[in-house]
């Protein structure tokens, strides 16, 4: 089981802030492909990966990063702090 968190417009597009999934995805990219197939709102949110960032257990990561041992995945747009 893995926790998936969504922030900002990703959260709005998908319609929920977090969910828990059973997945056999090996990498972040695999997980994204599985999510895209679930529903149109996921396909829309993950349409353009250049507009997205991912964090694994609260550390920024790449889309080809492995999910082994990861408990929390977060998807969000580029950050706008400061």
């Amino acid at each position: 089981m893995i926790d998936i968190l969504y922030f900002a417009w990703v959260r709005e597009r998908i319609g929920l802030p977090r969910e828990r999934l059973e997945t056999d995805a090996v990498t972040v990219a695999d997980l994204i492909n599985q999510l895209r197939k679930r529903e149109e709102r996921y396909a829309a949110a993950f349409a353009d990966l250049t507009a997205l960032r991912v964090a694994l257990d609260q550390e920024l990561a790449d889309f080809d990063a492995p999910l082994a041992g990861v408990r929390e995945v977060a998807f969000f747009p580029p950050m706008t702090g400061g």
Partner: protein
Amino acid sequence: MRVAVQSAPFDPGAEVQAFTAGAAGAGAVVTFTGILRPDGGLTGMEIEHYHGMTEKAITGIVAEAMARWSLIDALVIHRHGRLAPGQAIMMVATASPHRGDAFAAAEFLMDYLKSRAPFWKKEIGAVGEAWVAAKDTDEDALKRW
């Protein structure tokens, strides 16, 4: 060092006073305060953040600044939630024996907070709301460090 991620407003003057008083041995204190500008009918701002990661990311950025420059102390305060125009969004403060280090570290902190701390700003106006888009120039700014 102190990192505060908070929904409550803060008073930059009082923070500067406390920070300066606490930075014994410093020859230079630099502060930056980001304020919500009342531009073009903006009525407010909503700042979303990734609770947990935010504190961790900022603490890591401050630790890197303290490792790279000769700093006696550093402070980051960043608000989340709803802000009114004219309110302070965030501030950084650096204290160093030397002015060059205090300036460089404060700019470094700002550049990294912009693009590496998980906050997302939504501008709220009379006619609607819009997420603030990240700027390429903000990402480019990281390359100088």
